Every structure is written in C-alpha cells, then in structure tokens.
C-alpha cells in the first residue's frame, strides 16, 4: 500500500497529491466554492475571502477559519466548506460588493458572463441592505485606450488584472492606488490606459470577473458601415477566432466554426468574407524569406516574429535596441488591410474610399495596431475597424442568429484561401512551424517528408528546437507571455543562449486565448483550442504556406512578383518606433502657435547622459528658428531609464544620436514633416 494523502471535505475522504492549496483539493472533490481572486495560473492573492472554510482543530485545538486558496493541504485535515457563519460572511461579502457596484447590468458588456452576478446567484443574495453606490459618485470611465475600456465603478478589486499584467506579461501597467474604500486599479499617476506602457494585450480583461475591464467595443461602427449603402464592407477572420466563436452556441472549445461563421457574416450583410489565414500564409512567404536572407548573411539574428502587436509594442517600449531584430513584416492583419485596399477596389469595382475592411480578431492589441498612423493612407486606416471574437458573438446574437444551426459556407476568393500553415498561426508555435515548413524546404530544396514540427507546439512557456539544414543548424525558440519573452531576450543579450529565430506571442498559448476571445479561458480550454488548430491543419487541403497558389497569384499580379520584392516591402512591411520614454514626464521646450504642429520628442537618459538632451534641444530649436518653422513645432524633452537616446519627429525616429549624421537626418525629417503639414 502506498502512502496516499487523504483529507476530509464535508465528511468525504478526498485523495490529494501535488495540489498547491486546499481550494484545488476541494474543487477536485466537486465542491465549487466561489472565488473572485483565484486563478490557477496566477499567484495566490487571498483578498476576496469567499473561499473561507472551517478546518477542524487537531489535538483539542479550536476549529479555524482559513482561506482555502492560501492554505496548504495536509494529511488528515478535516474541512467543512460551509458553516452558518461562513455562509453569512460570504453572502455579506457579495452584498457589500454589489452595494458598491455600478449595477447597469442589462447594458453591461459582461452581463452574460459576469462572475459577480453568478456568485450572487449561487449564494442566494437576494437583496442589498447597504447604502448603494450613487450615480453622482461614479468615477469616469477610461476610454483612452483603443483596445481596452476600464470602468472603475464595476471593479471588485480582486487584483486579477494586476497580477495578469505583472506575472504573465511582466509589465505592471496597472496597480492598486489609493487606500481603503477609495482603492482603485489604475495606471501610474492615474493616467489613462492609452497613455502608458500598456501593450493592449487584453489579458487583464480576460481575467476580469466583471465588466470593469473589457475590450473596447466597436460593434456600432461595424453596424454603421454595414447599413451605409455607399460602402462596400468586407471582413477578414483571424485564424484563432474560428476555434472559439462557437462556444457561445454550445460548441466545444477548439471546434472549427469557420464555415458557420462565414454564413453568419454573410447574413449580417458583409459583402465578402475573407480569411486572415491567407495573409498569414503571405506572412510566411515574407518572413521566411527575410529569415533565410538574414540567416545566410548572419545579420540581425535572432529574428523575432512580428505578428503579435502586443509583443511589438513591448519590444518598442522595453527593448528598443532589439528592434532591428524584429521582422519588418506587418502582422497578417496589417498585410490583409494593405492588400485588400490595394487589390480589392479594382476587383470589386468600388472606390478605395468606399471599401471598408473589418477585421475579426481574437486580440485587443490589433485594435491598437490598426489605428497606428503608419498603417493609415490619407488618414484612413487600411484596416478600418477591428472587432474581437466576443464582439462578433454579440453581433451575431443580436440578430437572433443561431450560429450552430447555420449551414457552413466557404470563404470568398481569392483572399479566402489558406493552407494549414496559415491556420496554425492561432496557436503558440504556429508561426514558427509554418515558417519552418517554408524555410526548411527552401533551404534543402527537397519537399518535406513530414510537415509536423511538434517540438514547438503546446503550452510550455519556452519551447526550443534545433534543426539541421544544409545551411547549418538553425536554433529556434517559441515563447508566449511577455514575462517569458523577457527571460528569453535577457538570455540572448547575455550570450547565455543563441537562437536564430524566435516566435513571441503575448497571450498564454497564443492567439487562441487572446484578450478578445470569449471570456472564461482556462488552461484546459487553451489546450482544446490549440488542439483544434492542429486538427484543422490536418484537415486542410494543403499544409505548407508556400503551396498557397492564390498567394503566389497575388504576388504575381499585384506585389512585384514575389516575396521580398520592392513592392512587397512597400505594402507588406513596416518600421518600428522607439517608445522607451518615461511616459508623461515630458518637459516642453518649444511650443508653436499654428493650429497643426509637428510633435518632436527628444528622449534622453538624464542620469547617464544629460548633456545630450540639452545639446539636441539647442540644435533643433536653432534649426527650426532659422528655417522659420518655430510656429509649427512642439518640442518636448522626455526621459528614459535606459540608454536609448532618441529623437522622434512625428512618426520618424532617429536614434544613435552620438553619430554625426544624426543631426542631418533629424533636419531632413523636420523638413519633410513641416512640408507635409503645410501642404
């Protein structure tokens, strides 16, 4: 007989092993104690107090009330999950939260899957006897971010978002501020989420039990476009969306709903429904080509993928010195918008300005990406509107459509054809695997025997593989969660590790659990959705992106003939911005008087190189004064804690300020920006 570890929950014996706390043992025993602040993948916080249980005192000691989440299970423990006092305490805790909650529940985005409502129902809280939150005391809702909306009046201060941001992403863009009943979760100095180092990943919203943090809702903009007769509205569907969108209609996580979704989108009034996997395949053409080129020249290695806009902003903010290593390829969404706006008007017989490109993404950061000035042409974003999976679920629901009952339909051609390589972009490791399918074949010149690179699949935080090719060994790494990415970057920077190619996705498990996916993701759901992508890969006609004939056609007809061409670089690639300044610590040096002005920001490390800022303030102010630009310039000085001095003129950034040519480049950029402004 082995030493089984056993404790007693409500009179029944339960075996336990490596569960990290009582709560997990109790849940294993089938008792679903409600909690707000417990997530198995985050640290234990112990603040909601709903998981209190009674632990029988041993050797005549009195019984103790313990929080199950922060108590280690021990052999022979006798636990009651509810007593009269505990029941009363739990109900009062929820009643207290409800009293301080802005209860516009019917109109709340999270109405259907609100944990606060669910727990109140579970515990039978039927009235609120306390003084209620008054409308006139509501705090302002933060809508400064294009990705995430923060309503402090619905916050229960469980801290899940704070821990997600700190522990998963290693950022800490939000934290608790103020004391007692005034406590709030806020970015530093009470700034808006749109003004700080938040990378828009939406993992805060993904763990938020209420409607306090939700993806920014752009549904109405889509409806407006759909009802505008003068517009031709087309839509693209990202790979990960199809493996989650059906869940609201009873589908299992991972079940591929692409056909049903196409049918629903047609019913909603979209003229054409395309597949982002098409440009995912195209991304492989570009990025693998870029990789082969760099690998051959041994230049700027490792190459980092650039599909994830949260990762890109993270790198721009925290590791600007690594930006030359980030692939210059736009994300599949960025490529799609660009290709669509360049190709479709002719094909569909509409004017470019009347074409509206809507993108359905598992991701909140894609909303941020789409509105970046560099992805706008004549002030119009190439991807006009980005909505998340959860938004499209609500839109479908609002029409009374039963998604599960629809007959599947096919994506429209040509931008609707994809290989398995494009589809697996939705899972962590997918981009790497698709790129390897492309690169290995190109390098060896031989067709792949097996398209599966299983070492890069799955939920491990950091996955590594080394492939032998005729061109030499290729070391790759796949990482998800930016805190993990940080570890990898530090290892690369210190020389501890050498990689040639690194895939980074901000969200755990990749896009399938992005911040815009249906709420309530667990590790089990992540695995199921990941598994779904590989099933779809197998089921696809083709598995290798390079076999996508439609992509090849598109290159031939519209994009300079093939990957890496000049035209491809124009419309499929991008450049990055150093965002390493300490936000909101800018000192104004010059203020113009014109209605429209060019913003120039000099970012310096005041600790190690204070003279540099002073030097450039003088050089630039002299220059703009001499040129007569003074009225058209706003010049600010910002500070960084890192050694990344940089001058940003509107959207152009010039670093290596110590270099002699820097001033000339700055002057040219100023000339261009002012000329554009005055044109």
């Amino acid at each position, binding site marked *: 007989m082995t030493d089984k570890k056993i404790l007693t929950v409500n009179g029944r014996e339960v075996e336990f092993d490596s569960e990290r706390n009582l709560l997990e043992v109790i849940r294993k025993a089938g008792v679903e104690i409600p909690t707000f602040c417990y997530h198995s993948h985050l640290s234990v916080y112990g603040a909601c107090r709903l998981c209190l249980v009674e632990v029988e005192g041993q050797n005549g000691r009195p019984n103790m009330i313990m929080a199950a989440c922060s108590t280690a299970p021990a052999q022979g423990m006798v636990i009651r999950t509810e007593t009269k006092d505990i029941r009363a*305490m739990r109900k*009062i*805790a929820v009643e*207290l939260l409800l009293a301080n909650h802005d209860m516009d529940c019917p109109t709340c985005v999270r109405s259907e899957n609100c944990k606060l409502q669910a727990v109140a129902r579970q515990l039978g809280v039927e009235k609120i006897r306390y*003084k209620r939150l008054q409308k006139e005391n509501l705090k302002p809702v933060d809508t400064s971010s294009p990705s995430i909306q923060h309503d402090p009046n619905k916050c*229960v*201060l469980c801290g899940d978002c704070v821990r997600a941001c700190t522990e998963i992403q290693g950022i800490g863009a939000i934290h608790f501020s103020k*004391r007692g009943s005034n*406590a709030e979760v806020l970015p530093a100095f009470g700034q808006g989420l749109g003004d700080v180092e938040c990378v828009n990943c939406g993992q805060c919203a993904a763990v938020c039990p209420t409607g306090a943090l939700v993806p920014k809702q752009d549904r109405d903009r889509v409806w407006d476009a759909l009802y505008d007769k003068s517009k031709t509205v087309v839509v693209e569907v990202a790979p990960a969306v199809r493996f989650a969108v059906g869940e609201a209609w009873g589908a299992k996580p991972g079940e591929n709903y692409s056909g049903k979704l196409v049918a629903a989108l047609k019913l909603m009034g979209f003229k054409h429904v395309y597949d982002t996997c098409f440009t995912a395949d195209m991304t492989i053409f570009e990025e693998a080509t870029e990789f082969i080129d760099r690998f051959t020249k041994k230049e700027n290695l490792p190459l980092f993928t650039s599909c994830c806009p949260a990762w890109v902003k993270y790198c721009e903010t925290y590791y600007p010195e690594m930006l030359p290593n980030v692939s210059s390829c736009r994300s599949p969404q960025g490529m799609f918008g660009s290709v669509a706006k360049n190709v479709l008007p002719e094909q569909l017989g509409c004017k470019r300005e009347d074409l509206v490109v809507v993108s359905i993404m598992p991701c909140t950061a894609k909303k941020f990406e789409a509105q970046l000035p560099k992805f706008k042409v004549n002030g119009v974003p190439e991807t006009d509107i980005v909505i998340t999976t959860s938004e499209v679920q609500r839109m479908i629901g609002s029409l009374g459509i039963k998604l599960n009952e629809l007959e599947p339909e096919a994506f429209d051609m040509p931008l609707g054809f994809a290989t398995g390589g494009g589809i697996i972009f939705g899972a962590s490791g997918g981009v790497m695997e698709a790129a390897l399918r492309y690169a290995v074949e190109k390098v060896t010149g031989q067709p792949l025997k097996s398209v599966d690179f299983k070492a890069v699949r799955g939920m491990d935080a950091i996955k590594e593989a080394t492939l032998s090719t005729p061109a030499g060994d290729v070391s790759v790494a796949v990482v998800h969660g930016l805190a993990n990415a940080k570890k990898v970057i530090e290892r690369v920077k210190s020389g501890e590790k050498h990689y040639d190619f690194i895939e980074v996705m901000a969200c755990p498990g990749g896009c399938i659990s992005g911040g815009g996916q249906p709420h309530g993701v667990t590790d089990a759901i992540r695995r199921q959705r990941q598994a779904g992508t590989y099933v779809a890969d197998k089921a696809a006609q083709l598995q290798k992106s390079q076999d996508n004939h439609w992509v090849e056609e598109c290159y031939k007809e519209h994009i300079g003939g093939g990957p890496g061409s000049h035209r491809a670089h124009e419309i499929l690639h991008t450049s990055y911005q150093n965002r390493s300044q300490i936000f909101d610590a800018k000192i104004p040096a010059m203020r113009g008087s014109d209605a429209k002005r060019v913003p120039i920001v000099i970012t310096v490390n005041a600790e190690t190189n204070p003279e540099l800022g002073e030097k450039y303030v003088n050089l630039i102010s002299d220059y703009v004064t001499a040129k007569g630009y003074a009225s058209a310039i706003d010049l600010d000085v910002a500070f960084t804690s890192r050694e990344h001095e940089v001058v940003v003129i509107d959207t152009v950034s010039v670093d290596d300020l110590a270099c002699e040519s820097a001033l000339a480049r700055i002057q040219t950029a100023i000339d261009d920006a002012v000329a554009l402004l005055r044109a």
Partner: protein
Amino acid sequence: MSLINLEAIAEQYKKSVSKLQRRIIVCGGTGCIANGSLKVRAALQAELEARGQHTTVELDEEEGAEPFEGTYLSKSGCQGFCQQGPLVRIEPEGIFYCHVKPEDASEIVEKTLLNGEIVERLTYLDPKTKQRRPHENEVEFYTKQTRVLLKNCTIEPENVQEYVANGGYVGARKALAMTPEEVYQIVLDSGIRGRGGAGFPTGLKWKFTLASQSDKKYVVCNGDEGDPGAFMDRSVMEGNPHAVIEGMMIAGKAIGADEGVVYVRAEYPLAVRRMQRAVEDANKLGVLGENIFGTGFNFQVRIMEGAGAFVCGEETALLASVEGKRGMPTPKPPFPAQKGLYGKPTVINNVETLGQIPYILREGAAKYREVGPENSPGTKTFALTGHVANTGLIEVPFGATLRDIVYDIGGGVIDNDGNITDDDFKAVQIGGPSGGCLTPEVLDLKLDFDSLKPTGAIVGSGGLVVMNKQTCMVRIARFFMQFTQNESCGKCVPCREGTKQMLALMDDIIEGRATGETLELLEETAKAVQLGSLCALGKTAPNPVLSTLKNFREEYEAHVFKKICPTGECKALARPEIDPEKCKGCAMCAKKCPVGAISGELKKPHSIDADKCIKCGACKSTCKFGAVKGL
C-alpha cells in the same frame, strides 16, 4: 581593531561626570519640544552663562580629559508626563518643574540653582489634594508606575556612553557569547510576549525563525506605531534608542541574522533622527559592525522610513513596504519566520519588545519574571489619555488593575470641566482601534494579555482612553470605525467594503435615520468583517463597535428607537427647546442665535424654530436661567 571594553567606557563616562555639581534635564521628547522645551533649554543656558556658571551642553569627552565641572544641561527622551510639559528636572535634588517657559529660566537659575530655593509656581499641583509637589518622587503619576523600559528615558539619548554607563550593551555582550539556542531559551524562560498587540511569545518566534534554514535572515523592528493617541514606541525610540538596537542585535544572534531594519513612520522625525544617530554611534563604538566583541558575530542596522499607512504596522504589509511594494498584508502562512523580508526568514518585533530584551539578557529571566503575572510577565507601557487628571506615557506591571491606572497614576476621572469626580467613570477604551470599550465592572480586572480576551478588548499596543459619563459611546465607536475605514488598505472585501458600510450605518444611528434593522445589519456586518478579513487589522476593526454594542446597548437603542442621544453629544438628535417656566424673556438667546431660530416677545417665554436651528448651543451657553433644554 581593539575590542570594546564596556566597563572602561562606563568608567570613563562616570569619571567625566563625577565633578558635576548639577544636572538639569530638559525633556526633549516630541511633546515637550512642541511646547518649546528646546527654547527653555537655550534660555537656561544663556542665563547660566550670563551668571558666569560653567555650563556643559554636550559631553564630548576626549580620552584622558579632565572631568566636567559646573552644570550639565542635558536633554532627555520623553519623560511621559507631556500634559505638564515642558518638563525640567534638576538633579541631584530631584526637583520637578512643569509648564516651564523660556521666561522662567532666570528665576530658576537665580532661585533654585544659585540659592537652592524652590520656585513654587512651577511645581506640580496634585489634582486630588491641590497640594504642590516639588520633587519627582512625590508625584503620584511617577511613583505609582514601575518603570523598567522607561527608566532610561531621562538619560541623554544621543550619548551612547551614558547608555553604556547604565548597563547598556552588557546584555548583547552576554548573548553574543552564547549559542543561538541559549539566547532564545533565556527569552523563552522570561515569558516575554510581543508588545505589538497579539502577545505572541517572543522566544518562540525566535526559535521558529532559527529553525528556518537560510543563507540570509533579517531582524525587523516594527516602529510603525499608528494607533490614534499612542506614542509608546515613539518615546522609546526617542528616549532610549540604543536599547532597541541592542535588542535587535540579541535577536540577530538568536536567529542567525546579520542585518536589521528599523521601520519607523516618517511622521516621527525625531525618532528617525535619534535612531539614526544611535546607529551611527553604535557603529563608531564598534557594538555594530563586524566581529562584535570579538565573537565573530556581524550585525548591521539600517533605518527605513514608512509613509504613514496604519496597515504597515501589520507585519506582512510592513515587509512589503520595506521591499518597496504597496503596503498590503499577505495571507499567513507563510509566516515571516519562514518567508519574510525578500523571502528570507525574518523576525519582526515591536519596538517595546526589543527595548525590553537587553534587560532580560543582562538581569536574567528570573529577574524579569519578578514583575507581573505568570502568563504575562514584565511591564507594559500605556498611553493614558481621555478624561483623567493626569495623562501621558506610563509603565505598569502586567497584572495592575485599571483602577490603579485610572485613579492612582491617572489621578482620577474628570468631568468635562476638568474637575475630579470619582463617580464619573463610564468606560475605558483599551487597545486602540482594534480594542474595545470596557465598563466600570472591569476596574479591578488585572490587566494582561489573557484576562482581557473575554471582555472583547485587547491590550493591543497600549492605548488607554478613559471616558466620563458625558461621553457618547456610539460616537466613540464611530470615531474608531472612521479611523479603521480610512486606514484599511483596500485589499480584502470584508475590511474595505464592510468598514465603509459599518461607518455609514453608524452615521445613520447618530443622525437619526436608523431603525431596528440598522442595528441588526451593523452587528451582522461586524461579525462578517471579524470572521472574513485577511489580516488582524481587519479582523479586529469591528471590536470598538461590537464591544460598545455589548456593553452599552441601551445607548445605541436610545439613538435608534427614541432618537435621543443620552449624553447630548449627537447634535443631529438634539431637540432644543426653551422651558417656558424658566425663560424670563430677556431675548439674549435670540440675539446670540446665528441663524435667527429663536423668537418671542420681550419678557415673555421665547421659542426655538426646530427647522432653522443648527444646534450650535449658543443659546444654551448664553442663557443665565438654564431655560434651554435638549442640547
């Protein structure tokens, strides 16, 4: 480096002061300084020097120098009787002057110092007997105390030699020659329990921390004293800083730590300065640093200023704050003894606890146990305040009764006009915002950690507020509720939301909106907060409400059901009216009323318009005939 010879230092100090004729000790605690004691000291110095008296302000001895002569004008830490400050003592006579102002300096010098006469008007007036008490050993406030920890509070806190001359660092030297097990065993034998509130046996805490294996351990001194009106720890840090450092060293030896952190709230600038000075002096002297007393034991101490959050007195929140994080408690276990500062095993002790440790090591556990009962040996300091004749910082043995404290040391209960009225005792609030209000029935209860438990109060860190019969207990409970509500860190739901709603319910009671359901909900909520809160501060936050509900329920009921505040303190419930029998129609009240709420014909009874009245009480204080009632 030569080894420190404590005896030689003590000898040298004693020699240097052996030829002094007099020592004037001006209280240099925060209270007396605020009242101008440093100006008094400067004035005394000027007067002495003007009269050609040889005066020494600071003893900066050089080796082999001649002993000082004339008058030593020193300052001390807090002497406890802040109510009477600035305090000036004159040794060797033991003369005790109160409320001394700079302009009194010349008379003190002229009469007392030069001619040996007492300045009668500066002596202490006994509130009971109305007799003058010129000497400290005649002042009941002091004579009824047992000062162990505070004994050294008349020495010059910025002079380490004087500390050594009074037996300082002897305990540490003893401890450093022992094994860690021997050190914690002595502390365990002494029975000393933590003075921070919970009363956990200090030796046991040390034993547990010693048992935790780690390459690094810490000793943290909790000087984040935050109870309203409490200043025990501040006084110790200001008046006897070396005792705290010595206590930390001994703790360091017992658990195997080489680093100590003193966490002091930034609102205690003098305590911060004195502690810092003491650390510097101890380093210079070699009692801190490396290879102390040649034992191979190293110990460093640094001072860390807290930003004044009450919750940082809770040990896990304090440790988070030291690490630069937001001061919020974390669930225990793990206890600091297992995972404390920077994740390393840490002993965290209160200032007062650490301050007692050198005495235990120097004099032995048995000697320490001579005072106080079996379960709570030793003495405890209290901040005595409220409606008593004498208020201030006191030290009594555990086992003393409230009667001893209130009537002997405190000099008796006073009414709102300041007169001692012995039957006016209504309640005593003990233990600060975590404590409870006790009734006259417990006056003879022997105070210790365990005896208070059944009453719903705790010794806590040692706040003692005496209340007379004109005090509304509902308002007192509300006051503490407001405090805990403001100071909740906001982490856990019961404390953050519960205390806020309890405060709202208390306001309903005080302002006349309450019903029977309000009382029920208040009690229910209080119990939920007590049961559910994450840390001890939250768990004890409802104590003031629960203990007043238990002991003064009829007062709550009067507010709720009769809409009356029995003491008249709750203005919203006041219903002022003019007794037509008593009113002479002089119209003085109508003239004084700031809102014109009183009207009437001259020489006829007036009346108050309840809608206009703001219940300021101006009419009542004006009326010569006592005709205004209900205020």
